[in-house]
């Protein structure tokens, strides 16, 4: 017995020792206001202080103190010549506070959406684009030359000048550097013969791209999410110490490890907040950039909020519970699920927050099902899937109201699959008409009409087993892949409901449940062996991300309904299948080329409408059940200037980054 007691004692002592020598905290984030505050007034022997220029009050108190103590140059020296004035949503803010934010994984994708600063950005209301780091841009040479004029005098967060040395570093030392694979030439940065575009830097603030074909869309491509543009803005003065060309002791692995602006403390950035501390996999701490180049309409330097602290929480249920406790000032994608709205609303009062109205998903189909036009394993099935009558029959067989009731608890609009209703292609009255027509195309629930269409497609029961067979007489089973793309909890009941609709009409259906995120489902896409594939469709600008309308790419690389014909186009005819003349794929590819050569935005909108007409007449190529659900965006009641409109489904517009998070403020 004594030995057991001894064992227990050892255990207890071990635990106590471990508690005592627990992890020593990685440097506590500096709180600059405290040391500065205690030191400044404690020096009465310096009467010269009265002569020194008054510190500008158009900056955060924590910076005023740093300026007063001489640790930071005055505001006027820190702001660029071409300062960007950001309109405020509701009021001029107060400085201070910490924005506690949530993210799902260490890549910090959700936070990057709030932080990033692109060349050119989406307007907060999604009606078009506006200048960012680039103050204006122009085309020459029929769209073959793009000239980008950067703002003059912007500084990195450590005070170093941002100029074309940095862009040159990106292009010459990283993107075109064969030895460094992490940063590559962007996909749009090639001539038609696959040689890289030419990049020129005539002066410190101008960058010129030259191709051998028109690139009217490229400025807008630069505005796409954080992933297109953020690779270009590299602090060369900082990164050169890790670059083998400049430091013979360094290796490219060192460079790759250091070149992560979202988790490298002290990495000079151009954002409102820069990374200052990190606990990998748990938490990242951001601190205001004293050299931020944006001001509010009264000339106060932004951002208003001092710090951003991001918690990384992998489990969704835990995130929702934490959100419901009001632990996070502003959250856009922590829940990311309209089904959480009732619970979050119920807890709002206790948690001291509200759900921001007007934030939508922007889904044109949630859920939707991509119909494979290039089904590889069987020609008979492929012909059926390519038959417009069959597809229209499927669409009319779907009871969308019921799917919305079963899967969504009543949230959303029944509709055919489209891109985002809020897309700028549909902003004009004419555009609205096109959108309405697309949204309602074959979207009625009409089993009789569906049967009529099936019969037109020669899709009938030939062997008398009560199930419809292929026109050749072979039995047929329609397989619906559930991929998790539209969320398992939505896709599964939706597919099940659709299956019931179809079985009533004698269609044999098998939903195939892929565990979401497993490679199996991507493999079926890659090899084009799926029939119907669950999806979530949304896009605000189709030219920068064309796949929902135009077949341009192969399976597994962004293709939607035409994996093989897209592959053909992508590989320049080397692989895949050539579209038959006058087929939808051929017509859509031709329209895409026409759009790429069209210099005006309005002209391109018209081409989108033309392409949509093909989808209406010969489609649907993607079946849609419901769309445009609202999203739960959580804002604490003491937080201001978060707009009452936004779109979170498509990532391309970079929401919430386009709504200027630097002007959000927290009541102190």
């Amino acid at each position, binding site marked *: 017995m004594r030995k057991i007691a001894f064992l227990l004692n050892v255990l207890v002592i071990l635990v106590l020792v471990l*508690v005592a020598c627990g992890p020593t905290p990685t440097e506590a984030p500096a709180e600059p206001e405290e040391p500065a505050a205690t030191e400044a007034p404690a020096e009465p022997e310096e009467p010269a202080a009265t002569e020194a220029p008054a510190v500008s009050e158009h900056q955060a108190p924590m910076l005023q103190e740093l300026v007063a103590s001489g640790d930071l140059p005055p505001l006027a020296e820190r702001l660029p010549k071409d300062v960007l004035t950001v309109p405020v949503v509701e009021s001029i803010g107060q400085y201070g506070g910490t924005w506690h934010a949530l993210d799902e994984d260490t890549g910090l994708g959700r936070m990057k959406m709030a932080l990033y600063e692109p060349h050119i950005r989406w307007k907060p209301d999604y009606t078009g684009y506006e200048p960012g780091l680039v103050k204006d841009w122009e085309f020459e040479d029929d769209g073959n030359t793009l000239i980008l004029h950067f703002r003059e005098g912007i500084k990195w967060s450590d005070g170093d000048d941002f100029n074309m040395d940095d862009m040159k570093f990106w292009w010459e030392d990283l993107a075109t550097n064969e030895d460094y694979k992490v940063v590559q030439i962007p*996909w749009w940065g090639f001539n038609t013969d696959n040689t890289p575009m030419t990049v020129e830097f005539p002066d410190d603030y101008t960058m010129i791209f030259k191709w051998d074909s028109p690139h009217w869309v490229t400025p807008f491509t630069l505005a796409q999410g954080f*992933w297109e543009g953020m690779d270009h803005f590299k602090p060369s003065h900082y990164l050169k110490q890790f670059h083998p060309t400049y430091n013979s002791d360094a290796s490219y692995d060192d460079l790759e490890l250091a070149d992560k602006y979202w988790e490298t403390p002290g990495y000079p950035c151009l954002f409102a907040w820069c990374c200052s501390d990190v606990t990998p996999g748990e938490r990242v701490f951001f601190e205001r950039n004293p050299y931020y180049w944006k001001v509010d309409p009264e000339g106060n330097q932004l951002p208003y909020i001092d710090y951003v602290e991001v918690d990384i929480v992998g489990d969704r249920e835990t995130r929702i519970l934490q959100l419901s406790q009001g632990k996070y000032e502003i959250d856009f994608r922590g829940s990311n699920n309209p089904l959480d709205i009732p619970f979050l609303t119920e807890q709002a009062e206790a948690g001291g927050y509200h759900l921001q109205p007007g934030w939508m998903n922007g889904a044109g189909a949630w859920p939707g099902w991509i119909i494979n036009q290039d089904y590889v394993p069987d020609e008979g099935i492929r012909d059926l899937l390519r038959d417009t009558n069959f597809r229209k029959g499927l669409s009319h067989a779907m009871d969308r109201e019921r799917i919305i009731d079963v899967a969504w608890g009543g949230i959303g609009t029944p509709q055919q699959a489209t891109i985002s209703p809020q897309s700028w292609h549909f902003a004009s009255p004419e555009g609205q008409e096109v959108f309405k027509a697309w949204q309602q195309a074959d979207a009625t629930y009409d089993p009789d009409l569906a049967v009529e269409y099936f019969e037109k497609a020669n899709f009938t029961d030939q062997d008398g087993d009560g199930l419809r067979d292929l026109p050749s007489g072979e039995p047929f089973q329609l397989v619906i892949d559930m991929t998790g793309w539209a969320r398992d909890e939505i896709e599964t009941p939706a597919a099940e409901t659709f299956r019931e609709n179809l079985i009533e009409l004698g269609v044999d259906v098998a939903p195939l449940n892929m565990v979401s995120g497993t490679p199996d489902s991507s493999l079926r896409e890659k090899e084009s062996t799926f029939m119907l594939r669950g999806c979530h469709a949304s896009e605000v600008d189709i030219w920068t991300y064309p796949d929902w309308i135009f077949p341009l790419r192969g399976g597994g690389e*962004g293709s939607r309904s035409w994996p093989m014909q897209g592959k053909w186009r992508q590989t320049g005819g080397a692989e895949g299948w050539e579209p038959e003349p006058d087929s939808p794929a051929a017509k859509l590819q031709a329209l895409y080329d026409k759009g790429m050569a069209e210099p005006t935005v309005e002209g391109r909108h018209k081409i989108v409408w033309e392409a949509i007409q093909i989808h209406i007449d010969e489609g649907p190529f993607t079946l849609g059940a419901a769309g445009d659900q609202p999203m739960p965006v959580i804002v604490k009641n003491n937080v201001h200037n978060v707009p009452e409109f936004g779109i979170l489904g498509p*990532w391309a517009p970079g929401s919430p980054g386009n709504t200027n998070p630097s002007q959000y403020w927290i009541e102190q």
Partner: protein
Amino acid sequence: MITYLMRRLGYAAIMLVVVSFVSFLIIDLPPGDYMDQKLAELSQRGDRSAETRIEEYRAKYGLDKPLLQRYWMWASNFVKGDFGESFQFERPVKDILGERLQMTILLAMFALAVMWIVAIPLGVYSAVNQYSLGDQIMTTIAFIGMGMPNFLLALLVLFFAVVVLDADITGLFSREFRDAPWSLAKAWDLLKHMWIPSLIAAVTGSAGLIRIMRANLLDTLGMPFVEAARARGLKNRTVIWKHAVRIAINPLVVILGSEHIPGIINRNMLLAYILNLPTIGPVFIGALLVQDSYMAGTCLVFLIMLTLIGNLLADIGLAWLDPRIRLE
């Protein structure tokens, strides 16, 4: 004794190689790899530039090489202390696990201590007072504890704590203490957070131990030597604790070695995932889900190592506790 130890360690090394290879193989079995998933995720988000990079990543992590070559690459570096790089974190596996190791051991030890301190006296009580009201209550609770998976209990407790108590319970520290240096207040804060995982681990973990302790002690109490001890006029207390429990505890020592020591890594994995604890468990789950092979493989190898060491320790411990057992 020395030869015995050498032999056991030799077997352990062979075992380690075989099991690590098999687990590497199993992780690799599903079609596709991590980069397929990464590409799918990025393209759903609308990232067109990702495609150009994905093949480069594949080459960088050696995913374009055959399985045997990859295993050899990883295993030979493993011996040198380089566990490879995690695909998801894009950092060395060693760094990620290293940062989490201390909290993992701390939490596991704490839960273990709670479990044992609860289980042994209750098990003894149950056996000695068989079929009493106390025993019945304990049995009921123990069966619920055994039947309920700890992650489910964690979700229930979480919901209760958040919605009813409005307590701050996820993670191990409150915000204000996360970066603070160690102090009494911080230790108190840690205890305030640790009661949930410990309670859950104790309820679900002690249950089995209580039952085993009870059953074994009941067996032992009926044995002639106990009777003989009683006949010699020894105090009841002494008979139970000194004579009976000492024999009956052997299976618990085996469990300690073979289950609880390797359990440091995986025992409360789901629980830690749900409570967002900074331990190895959640990383391990994440790695298995997305085929982050080197990360998952490394966790598995450590798990196996701990199992082998635990078994060895259990055997040595048993020999020490019970003079009838000899190591041969």
